[in-house]
């Protein structure tokens, strides 16, 4: 029971951290404070920083506990900065949020119920897909041995080299770090907390996308959240996004198939509507952070130009092609690391 309470505290804690990091970033980018947008930006900024820190630490054999407490110290500094620089904005924003019912009316209830239902479904769903043996195995084994990714998660044998296919994606290590910090079982962090985080982030993305697509009509955005839920749950094959969203919650791929693909659309709709440069900052963070969730992130290298080039063309903002190229650099980096590791050019000794 205490473990579940710690897990709930951990969930709130992680969401607060995303919010604080996002608020700080939105302030730097001079974007109006929006709670959901701050959470989304915070989420991708968080995983960008984590990926940039965790992959080198893994390859350098840094012990998990040392890394976890170092990461905690970094988060505390960021949160402190956020409180110092953003608390005034939060207070102002809170005062503005007095017309929620007028803007949403009954659709607010529909949106809340839909998110609660999804949260319930993933929280209590018995995720037993065989790939979790590897991904969750990495987290459990890292917590047990206190080393990051240096044992085969399926057998427990010490690895001679890190697996180049997986080691550049730090999502399992992220779960291991939080398991250490909260002193909870890795299965709870992976299959319960993160699945709920995914539901919340995904629905926020859909909602914000609706806001951009429907010219700030919040009722329509709420209805869009409902329809996305219905379509996802009625698109069952072993490959679809909905299947990953509801039944393969423990895998990073689930985030890539849903939150990240939807996020590209969100940034695209934002760019269509306002044509702001801060969209590119979000796009860059999206590309970088997606690497943390698995090699399938490389598919985003195809969807980003597919989403943005037509809009750039229609809006005749050709100079933005350069930004798009910059946003593709994380994919190039991953490509080099992956094939460098595969060819043995990048040293991946694990013992």
């Amino acid at each position, binding site marked *: 029971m205490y473990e579940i309470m710690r897990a709930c505290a951990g969930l709130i804690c992680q969401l607060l951290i995303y919010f604080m990091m996002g608020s700080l970033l939105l302030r730097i980018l001079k974007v109006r404070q929006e709670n959901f947008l701050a959470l989304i930006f915070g989420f991708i900024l968080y995983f960008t920083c984590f990926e940039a820190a965790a992959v080198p630490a893994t390859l350098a054999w840094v012990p998990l506990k040392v890394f976890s407490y170092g990461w905690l110290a970094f988060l505390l500094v960021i949160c402190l900065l956020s409180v110092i620089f953003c608390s005034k904005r939060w207070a102002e924003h809170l005062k503005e949020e007095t017309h929620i019912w007028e803007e949403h009316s009954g659709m607010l209830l529909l949106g809340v119920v839909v998110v609660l239902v999804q949260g319930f479904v993933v929280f209590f769903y018995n995720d037993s897909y065989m790939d979790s043996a590897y991904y969750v195995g990495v987290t459990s084994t890292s917590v047990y041995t206190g080393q990051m990714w240096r044992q085969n998660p399926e057998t427990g044998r010490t690895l001679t080299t890190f697996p180049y296919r997986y080691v550049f994606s730090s999502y399992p290590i992220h779960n291991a770090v939080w398991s250490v910090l909260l002193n909870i079982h890795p299965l709870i962090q992976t299959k319960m907390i993160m699945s709920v985080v995914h539901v919340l982030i995904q629905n926020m993305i859909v909602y914000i996308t609706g806001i951009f697509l429907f010219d700030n009509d919040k009722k329509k955005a709420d209805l869009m959240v409902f329809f996305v839920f219905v379509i996802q749950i009625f698109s069952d094959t072993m490959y679809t996004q909905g299947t990953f969203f509801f039944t393969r919650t423990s895998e990073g791929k689930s985030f890539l198939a849903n939150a990240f693909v939807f996020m590209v659309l969100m940034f695209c709709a934002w760019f*269509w509507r306002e044509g702001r440069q801060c969209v590119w900052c979000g796009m860059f963070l999206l590309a970088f952070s997606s690497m943390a969730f698995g090699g399938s992130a490389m598919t985003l290298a195809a969807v980003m130009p597919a989403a943005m080039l037509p809009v750039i063309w229609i809006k005749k903002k050709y100079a933005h092609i350069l930004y798009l190229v910059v946003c593709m650099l994380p994919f190039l980096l991953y490509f080099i690391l992956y094939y460098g590791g595969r060819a043995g050019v990048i040293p991946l000794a694990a013992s």
Partner: protein
Amino acid sequence: MTGVSIDEHGLTYVFICLEKYWSGCWFPWLFLFGCVIGRIFYKKKTGRIFWGYLVTLCLTVYNPLIVNLVLSVLKFNMEYYRFFWLLPVVPALAYYLVTISYLPKWTGVKVIVACTGAVLIMILGNPMDTVAVDYKFIDNPYKVPDDLEEVCAAIHQYSSKENPRVVLDLELNLYARQYDPSLRMVLSRNAVLYRSGSTSLSVDTKSDSYKRQKILMDILYYHVNFDITRFRTALMETKTDFFVVPIEYEFNDFLVESGCVECERTRERILYHFDWAAELKKEEKKNEEQAEERVVDSDVVPMEEQPVQ
């Protein structure tokens, strides 16, 4: 994608993959219809974004020529389905449904149109059985079978080793190290999946390691090839400390005869201990004795071979 090969299907590969991805679901057609209608009648609407997506993706990652070329070089045939995630079928359909729902002026009609849209989705889609129909509710917060907790507790109770080597049944094998990473698994995931008939994995079936694992799997999973000597040798060579069999399997006599000791019964399984170190010593001693006997035997020259003096 499983069962679809680019060598076999050539330029039709993308279409076959698309068909398999949606598996009879109408959503991609509705998406296409929405894109075309939006392109023709609502030229200034935001929905043009989806048209842009469609055209660009069709020219690139869904272009049969490019796909054939790239897949033949980079070899990610099994993962190609992930490119279908990129087509914004789900958000676009939701966008179209919301737009249609808000076309009428009266709220009551709007509600009726939205409900009709939702029902249409339910009729034209495939319901997710494991969620919407036969929901798989968890047994405990760890999302593992209750039996696994009991089995792991029993193993640690009976074993003084920090990392006992275990063979679990097919179901528990998947969860064991997620729940208790102190266990060392004798059977590798690939070997288990390959033996169960998976064609998407490559395993070196001629290696000693796989042969040993196969002997164990044949007996414990598939109940074939019961041979005590081979079973004991495999247990000793793989240094198996514990293994689990479902309670309904009735080959207790065979296991006891093989030198295994029953140590715990859970609701659904029986846990056996095999002291491979002691058994190995016994075996070595037996071999030494047999060798000595052979030496003694060879010293006694048969009568007919004795030299004639």
